[in-house]
C-alpha cells in the first residue's frame, strides 16, 4: 500500500493548487477574503471550452497556450470590474460582495443555454459541428515540435526521449501542466517579493498606516486582485484543458472558493507555496478514503487484510463491519477533511508550511541553505 497519490491526482493538485495559491495571493497577503474567487477560475475554464467549441469569436483551433493567456486576461478584466466596486468595502462586507458577484455569475451561467444545451450539466469540448475537437497543446504556440498535448483521456505520449525516458499520456499532462503551474507560481513569488508585494503585506498589517505613508492602497489592492484573478483564470484554463469539460458546480460555485480556502488554511495562510501543499494534503486524504484509491486507499487495504469473518461481524443492529466501512468512510472524505480543517483552525492556525517556517525560523529553502553551509 502506498500513500502517494496517483499521477491523475497530482495533476489536480497542480491546477487546483495554482488556483488556491492565487486565492492566497490576494486573501493571505492583503487580508481581503475574496470569497467569490471561483468566478475567475470558472471564467478561465469556460473560456477554454467555449473557444474550443467555436462559440467565441476566436478560431476554434487557437493554440491552447494562447487560450490560457486569454483566460487569464478575461479573469483579469473581470477582477478589475468586480474589484473596482468591491474594494470600497472591507472585512466581511468585502467577502460578501465578492460572493454576491460570483453567485450572480454562477446562477446566470447555470441557466444560460448559449453555453450548452444542458447548461446545468456544463459543457464538454466537442468542437464545432462536423470538426474533430482540437487537442490542447502546452509548449510554444505554432511550433509543432515544441508542443505536447494534455488531456484526461487523450494527449501525447513521449517515447525514447534522450534514449531512455518514456512517458504515458497522463505523465505528459502531469509534466506540462506542472510546468505552467510552476511558471505561474514563480511569477506570483516574484510579485510578492517585489516592493509591490511589500505594500500588499503593509495593507494586511495596517492599511491606515500604509495610506498615511503615502501609498494609494486602493490601486495596490486592485492591482493585486487583478493579478490574482489572472492566475486563477490560468488555473481554470488548465483545469478545463485537462478535464476537457466544465460544469457550473465544479468551477463557478462558491464552494469551489471554499476548497481553495481549505487548501490555504491547511497549507498555511499567507505562504504562497502553502496552498499547493494544502491541496496535496486534501487530495491525498480524499484519495486515501475513496473506494477506488488506485494509489492504494484505505478501503482496498481493509478489504484485503480483514478476513471474511471480520468483515461480516455484526457491530450494531444488523450493521456489519463491511457495511459500516462503506457507510462511514467511502466517499465521505469531506467529513474527515472538515474535522481536520476545524482542528487546524483551532490548533495549527499557521498551517503546515507556516508552522514549519516558524519552527525553523526562516523559509524552508533558507533554512536548508544555512544548514548546508554550516
Amino acid at each position, binding site marked *: 500500500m502506498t500513500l502517494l497519490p496517483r499521477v491523475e491526482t497530482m495533476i489536480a493538485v497542480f491546477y487546483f493548487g495554482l488556483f488556491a495559491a492565487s486565492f492566497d495571493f490576494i486573501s493571505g497577503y492583503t487580508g481581503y477574503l475574496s470569497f467569490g474567487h471561483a468566478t475567475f477560475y470558472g471564467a478561465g475554464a469556460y473560456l477554454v471550452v467555449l473557444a474550443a467549441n467555436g462559440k467565441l469569436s476566436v478560431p476554434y483551433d487557437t493554440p491552447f497556450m494562447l487560450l490560457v493567456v486569454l483566460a487569464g486576461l478575461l479573469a483579469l478584466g473581470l477582477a478589475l470590474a468586480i474589484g473596482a*466596486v468591491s474594494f470600497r*468595502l472591507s472585512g*466581511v462586507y468585502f467577502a460578501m460582495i465578492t460572493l*454576491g458577484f460570483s453567485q450572480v455569475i454562477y446562477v446566470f451561467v447555470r441557466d444560460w443555454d448559449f453555453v450548452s444545451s444542458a447548461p446545468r450539466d456544463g459543457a464538454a469540448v466537442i468542437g464545432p459541428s462536423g470538426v474533430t475537437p482540437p487537442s490542447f497543446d502546452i509548449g510554444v504556440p505554432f511550433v509543432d515540435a515544441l508542443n505536447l498535448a494534455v488531456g484526461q483521456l487523450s494527449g501525447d505520449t513521449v517515447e525514447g526521449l534522450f534514449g531512455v525516458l518514456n512517458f504515458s499520456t497522463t505523465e505528459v499532462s502531469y509534466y506540462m501542466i506542472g510546468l505552467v503551474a510552476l511558471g505561474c507560481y514563480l511569477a506570483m513569488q516574484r510579485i510578492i517579493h517585489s516592493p509591490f508585494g511589500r505594500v500588499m503585506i503593509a495593507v494586511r498589517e495596517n492599511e491606515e498606516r500604509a495610506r498615511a505613508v503615502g501609498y494609494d492602497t486602493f490601486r495596490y489592492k486592485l492591482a493585486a486582485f487583478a493579478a490574482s484573478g489572472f492566475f486563477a483564470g490560468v488555473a481554470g484554463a488548465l483545469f478545463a484543458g485537462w478535464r476537457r469539460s466544465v460544469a457550473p458546480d465544479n468551477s463557478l460555485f462558491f464552494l469551489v472558493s471554499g476548497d481553495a*480556502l*481549505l487548501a490555504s488554511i491547511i497549507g498555511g495562510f499567507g505562504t504562497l507555496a502553502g496552498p499547493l501543499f494544502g491541496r496535496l494534503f486534501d487530495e491525498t486524504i480524499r484519495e486515501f478514503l475513496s473506494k477506488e484509491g488506485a494509489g492504494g486507499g484505505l478501503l482496498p487495504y481493509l478489504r484485503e487484510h480483514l478476513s471474511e469473518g471480520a468483515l461480516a461481524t455484526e457491530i450494531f443492529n444488523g450493521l456489519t463491519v463491511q457495511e459500516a466501512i462503506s457507510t462511514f468512510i467511502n466517499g465521505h472524505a469531506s*467529513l474527515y477533511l472538515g474535522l481536520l480543517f476545524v482542528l487546524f483552525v483551532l490548533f495549527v492556525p499557521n498551517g503546515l508550511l507556516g508552522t514549519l517556517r516558524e519552527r525553523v525560523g526562516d523559509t524552508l529553502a533558507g533554512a536548508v541553505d544555512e544548514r548546508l553551509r554550516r
Partner: protein
Amino acid sequence: MSEVVLVSTLDALGQFLRPSTLAEVFVDGLSKAAVYAMIAGGLTLIFGLMGVLNFAHGSLTMFGAYLGGLVLVVAVSQATGPFARLAYFFVAAVVVFGLLAALGGALEVGLIRPLYDRPPIYQILLTFGVTLVLDEVARIAVSFYGLQPITEWQAALGTRPGVLSESYTVAGVGANGLDLFQVAVGALVVGAVWAFLTRTRYGLVVRAGSEDSEMAEALGIDVRRVFTTVFALGAGIAGVAGLLLAWDPTWGASVPLASETLLPAFVVVIIGGLGTFRGTVYAALLVGLVDAVTTWWFVNAIEFSALPEMTVFLILVLVLVVKPQGLFGVAEVGGH
C-alpha cells in the same frame, strides 16, 4: 419578431398592474419575506452580538428541516385531523428549537469560545469547517436511513395538512394556505425576537453586549454566557426556519438545503446592515417582494429561469454599491 415580444411584454405589464395580480404578488412576496426573515433572523442575532458570521447557519437550518420532518412523520401516525397536524407543527417547533439550541450552545462553548482572542476571520473559517462536517454527517445519516436519493424528502412533505394546500380567495385575491401560514409563523417569530430584544431584561443585556461588550463586562455582565445564550437562540431559530421549509415544496428537506438557505440568509443580513435586527426584517421584506415580482415575470413573460435566483444576489450587489454599510448598518459592528 421583436414586435411580438414587445406586445406580449406590454400585455404582461397590463396584466401585472391589475389590482388583483398586484395583491397576489404582494401576498406571495410577504410569504417569501417571512421565510427570508426566518432563515436570516438567527444569523443576524449571532452576528449583531458576537461579530461571528456563522457559516454553519445553513447547516443548522437543514438539520432543523430533517429533525422537524422526523417529528412530524412520527406524529402524523397519531394525528388525523388537519388541526391536530397543525398543533403537531408547534410541538415539532419546540422540539427542534430545543435540540438545535443545545447543539448551538455546545458549538459556541466547545469551538468558537477559544477563538475570541484571534482575528475575526478565524471564526468565519471555523464555522466554515463546521459546515463541512455537519453537511457530511447529514449526508451519511440520510443515506444510512435510506432517505436519499429523494432530494425533497417526500415523507415530511406528506405530513402537511390539507388546509395549507388549498387556495383561499378573499375579495378576488387568491392566496395559498401555506403562504398565509408562513406569513403567520414568520410574523410570530420576528415579533417574539423583537419583544425579547426590546421588552425583556435579558434582551437589554444582549443589546448592551452588542453595543459595547467591554463596558457591559465592566458593569458586571457575564458577556461570555450571553454569547452562548444568543448563539443557542440563533441556532434554535435556524432550526425552526428549517422546520417551516420542510413543508414548502419549493424548498423541502435535503442536504443541499444548507447552502441554498445559507446564501440568501447572508444576503438578507448584509443588505439590512450587519448587526441590526430591524434592518434584517426590512431587508427580508425587500428581497421577498422583489423575488415575488421577478418570479411572477418569469412565470408569465420572461423565459430566463435563473431570473428570480439571480435577483437576490443582484440586490445585494446593488445595495452594497450604493450603500456599503447596508440599509440600516453602522460602520463598525463587532470589530469589523
